[in-house]
């Protein structure tokens, strides 16, 4: 096993442990952790299976295998960011709807209190 393989292996294992720990502490939803675990698995496979990266790069017509790796990593990050942008958009929308619902309910409660206060005043006089 070459030096770089051992290094990649160690990094992958540490990543997996960090993700697992985050799930245990409930800081990461399982839904998202699956994606990250998948990433770690890909890292592991690429680290252990020496020929794979060469095959991928020749398949894509990229001369230097490390460039193929960088390109794939960049693409992956791009789609992850896009995915998070989508999530943020959805959350923003949901937050907005909650705020609007709250404003309407807040008004209804205020009205109810007012009408109760009026009714009590009428009784008193």
């Amino acid at each position, binding site marked *: 096993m070459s030096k770089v393989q051992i290094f990649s292996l160690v990094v992958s294992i540490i990543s997996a442990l960090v993700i697992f720990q985050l799930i245990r502490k409930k800081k990461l939803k399982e839904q998202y952790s699956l994606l990250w675990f998948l990433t770690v698995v890909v890292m592991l496979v690429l680290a252990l299976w020496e020929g794979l990266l060469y095959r991928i790069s020749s398949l894509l017509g990229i001369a230097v295998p490390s460039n193929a790796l960088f390109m794939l990593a960049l693409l992956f990050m791009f789609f992850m960011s896009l995915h998070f942008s989508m999530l943020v958009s959805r959350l923003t929308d949901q937050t*907005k709807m909650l*705020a*609007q619902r*709250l*404003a*309407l309910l807040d*008004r209804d409660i*205020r009205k109810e209190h007012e009408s109760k206060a009026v009714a009590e005043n009428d009784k008193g006089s």
Partner: protein
Amino acid sequence: MTDPRILVIIPAHNEADSLADVIADIRSALECGIVVVDDGSTDHTARIAIEQGVELLSLPFNLGIGSTMQTGFQFAFREEYDIAVQTDGDGQHDASYIPKLIEPILLGESDFVVGSRYLSDTNYSGPRGRRAGTAMFSRILSLMVGQRLTDATSGFRAANKALIAQFAHDYPRDYPEVETLLVAHMAHFRVRETPVAMRQRGGGRSSINKFRSVYYVVKVLLALLVVASRRRTPRAE
């Protein structure tokens, strides 16, 4: 339409200085419901609305003008108002024009009436940059809807009941004026303009400053493109 119920929506973000005058103006102009939608103000906008005895919807934090207006439409929809008028919290819009604004809706001639600064020969028409932007959007929009529009960015407008339902359900989050006109057209609502005069801003600042104006133009153009790319939906009644 027998005895139509009219609601004037005032979106207000830190408009404590001008709000009481705006409400008094509207009350002297016509008989109607008034709702102030407080967009997370940090001053006593909400207190003034309560003191004035108008309806108040208080958003817990700042949502921006579009979502604030939408909250007003949601209230209008729930309370089954026939016409919703949107005006500004800073006294820019002259409430005495509201009866003229809702007239085409009362007559059943139009679904969406926009008060235009450029149909009348009034002296005030806004700062120069804003004027150029409005002219550009108005021209683009006129081409898209096949009808001459002069003041696409005007926030002084009136919507009928069917449009209230539509806006309560879906409304752009920020810089909604131009986009909602196209949305209404795409959904087969009849849009029309009517001349109004506008005043210099009282309290409060314009929501559009120089740094944001680039974002404004790009956002609105993109929004128009997106709306236009959708199929024209049959009008929902």
